[in-house]
């Protein structure tokens, strides 16, 4: 089932184009990783999805309804955690969680208390005294304790400690198993790799890559570390070989995934003593899109 369908979405702030023809779909039971550098339009996309910003052009449908006109209907089935959780300094964490839950529907007190316990949050403290991580916990508990169908999480773990991060990841996997849909915007690529079925990369307001991780890996490079009996030569003449470094352990380099067969054939002629390979990482894919690109000032004022 299609949970989110964004078609040709454009959003302008005055003369600045924050989003330019974004297309994106997310289905039920799917975890989408939404990645991109600061100011690339992640938060703007999320705010348009939530009907907080009005699109300039295009169509944005959530649960098949219009994100702007039917915002309230849609939000009854959405749980959202903003990237920067700004809370009311004079309310306690417990009060805010209850408020957030009640604005969606009824409060499941058991689930709420369990989560408060698990995330080690003191709900009697005023939000003024919470650290960034604790404010984020308030947002996460309120989201996870709800029975929403779609979870929109904007960099939800940026202030959490590794224990809490792992707890969060467990909960995301549980939600996926229940068939919920999760829209996860993140900088932490290892987390996206661990959690997400599909990835969309946004840069300067345009989606430049999207697909399942397996699909995208075709676009990435495999790391190889090779030691041969006779010195390995000619490697740099091949297309698709990058970043060749020599060390006492052998020769380390990266190979475009589609060239790997050709390269292995070549090096086997030199008598392989040792070969280690590391799988392609999302980080490499990400870096490939950004490295060498002209430095653009990240101008999105509403992003991050």
């Amino acid at each position: 089932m299609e949970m989110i369908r964004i078609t040709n979405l454009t959003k302008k702030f005055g003369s600045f184009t924050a989003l330019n023809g974004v297309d994106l779909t997310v289905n039920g039971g799917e975890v989408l990783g939404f990645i991109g550098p600061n100011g690339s339009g992640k938060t703007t996309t999320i705010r348009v999805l939530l009907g907080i910003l009005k699109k300039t052009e295009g169509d944005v449908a959530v649960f098949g309804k219009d994100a702007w006109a039917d915002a309230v209907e849609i939000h009854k089935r959405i749980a959202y955690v903003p990237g920067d959780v700004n809370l009311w300094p004079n309310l306690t964490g417990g009060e805010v969680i209850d408020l957030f839950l009640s604005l969606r529907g009824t409060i499941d007190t058991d689930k709420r208390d369990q989560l408060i316990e698990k995330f080690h949050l003191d709900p009697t403290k005023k939000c003024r005294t919470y650290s960034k991580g604790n404010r984020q916990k308030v947002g996460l508990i309120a989201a996870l304790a709800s029975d929403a169908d779609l979870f929109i999480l904007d960099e939800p773990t940026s202030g959490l400690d590794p224990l809490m991060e792992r707890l969060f990841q467990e909960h995301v996997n549980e939600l996926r198993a229940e068939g919920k849909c999760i829209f996860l915007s993140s900088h932490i690529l290892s987390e996206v790799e661990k959690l997400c079925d599909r990835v969309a990369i946004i840069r300067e307001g345009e989606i430049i890559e999207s697909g399942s991780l397996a699909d995208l890996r075709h676009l990435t490079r495999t790391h190889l570390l090779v030691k041969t009996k006779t010195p390995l030569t000619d490697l740099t003449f091949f297309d698709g070989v990058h970043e060749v470094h020599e060390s006492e352990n052998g020769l380390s380099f990266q190979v475009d995934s589609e060239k790997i067969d050709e390269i292995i054939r070549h090096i086997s002629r030199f008598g392989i003593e040792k070969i280690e390979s590391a799988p392609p990482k999302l980080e490499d894919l990400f870096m490939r899109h950004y490295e060498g690109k002209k430095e653009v000032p990240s101008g999105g004022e509403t992003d991050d």
Partner: protein
Amino acid sequence: MTNQSFSNTGALATFIFRLDRLRMLWWLVGLTFFTLIVPAALANLYSSDQERQAVAETMTNPAMTAMVGPGDLDNYTVAAMTAHQMLLMTAVIAGLMGILLIMRHTRGDEEDGKLELIQALPTGRMAYLHAAVLVQLLLAVVLALVIGFGLAALNIDSVTVAGSLLYGALLGASAFFFAGVAAVFAQLSANTRSATGMSIAVLLGAYLFRAVTDVVNDDLSWLSPFGWVTKAEVYTSNQWHLLLIMIGAALLLFVAAYYLNAIRDLQRGFLPERTGKRTASRLLLHPLGLALRLQRTGLIAWAAGMAVLGVSYGSVLEDMETFFASNEMIQQMLAPEEDLTLAEQFLPTLFVVIAIVAVIPPVMAMNKLRSEERHERLEHLLGRAVSRHQLFGAYLTFALFNGALMMFLATLGLWAAGDASMDEGLSFTTIISSGMVFFPAAFVMIGLAAFLIGFAPKLLTGVWLYILYTFFVLYLGNLLDLHDWYGYITPFGHIPEAPAETITALPLITLSVIAAVLCALGFAGFRRRDID
């Protein structure tokens, strides 16, 4: 080992000065402008002694004494007139400036975590506080000199150089003294909002205390710093030692603030931070409940303040009655109406002041919607099943309730104190209706705020300028002989002056319709625009 507590104060003071230079400039220009135009205008309007003495007659009553303090009414020169009408009010505003400016860089920056960044740099532990105080001192001195020499430069006979310098110095000292009050509260409370609130409460308390004691027992006014301002008898006997008392008191306050700062931990205060409730009450679980809850403390404080204001004015009514009874000229001036006491005929003047003060909290309540937006807290609500309709409606409803409540409490206070002190008593319905008749004007101000939030949120400050304008025109309009036209372009100028005038429905209905249209437009705009 050398004492490094004040290391790098100079660099920090320069930094704070840079941050605040425009803000300070506006305060300076505003205070100077309002101070200088008054004597210039008065000299023009009341050029003869007789004319001025006639004004003095209208001032010789307890209500005016409560409002502006005592003055040299026997020798009412242009200078004496200026000092009487303007000095106290300007001192209150200068005090407010001191509180707001120093709070930003004491508890404000500390609560935001900026002080932590600064203390991690090679700066002394006391350096930032000291720097903030030095900047305030500089501002106070500049204010004193600009106003002092500015007044002297007007070249009006009675406006002497010595008096002018004392006038300016008292304003500078008031700003510095209340900056000291705020610096102490910034140490006591770990929370910027309550520290600001308590400082302003002391400011208003000092004003109101003096209002009552100036009428009831003049000697007790010595206990209020504003008593020192009026007792300095600027332009008459120029009591410079009162300026020294004020500066001395300010220095004591700063010593206390430095001491408290030295013995406490960063981001802590001395007033206990209570832990709160584990779960939310039922009331909170609704946008309207949330709007109410977020503003609860402010609502209670303002409500108490308005009631005290009403009681203060009400308690001088009996003195006024006695005074009027012995003054034939006034009896003639106020056209006698059969069923009204003379004090009652003077009430509209008091009600205008009360009504303008009472419009501040509801406009703040409406503007809270914008401030929530700027703090990025609206997205929590709009990202859940709350419509913009509900959200806007909640804040508007609360603002209207707030406006009605504030005016009612002040009027009730005035009636209760007046009724208790006056021999003949006061009619409850007459007084309450005379006060509540101002509600449509408040409604227009709330409507204007709602309109701007919907259509031009960046221009929201415009409401405050409009309120300031209204206050200026209604407070000084008669004195400066402004054309009626100035009053007509503010909603408060259209309110019937009850109980002296009969209450007519037409202006009230017209104002309400205008206000309702503004609200509807604001609502439509809010529904259409991006949330920041």
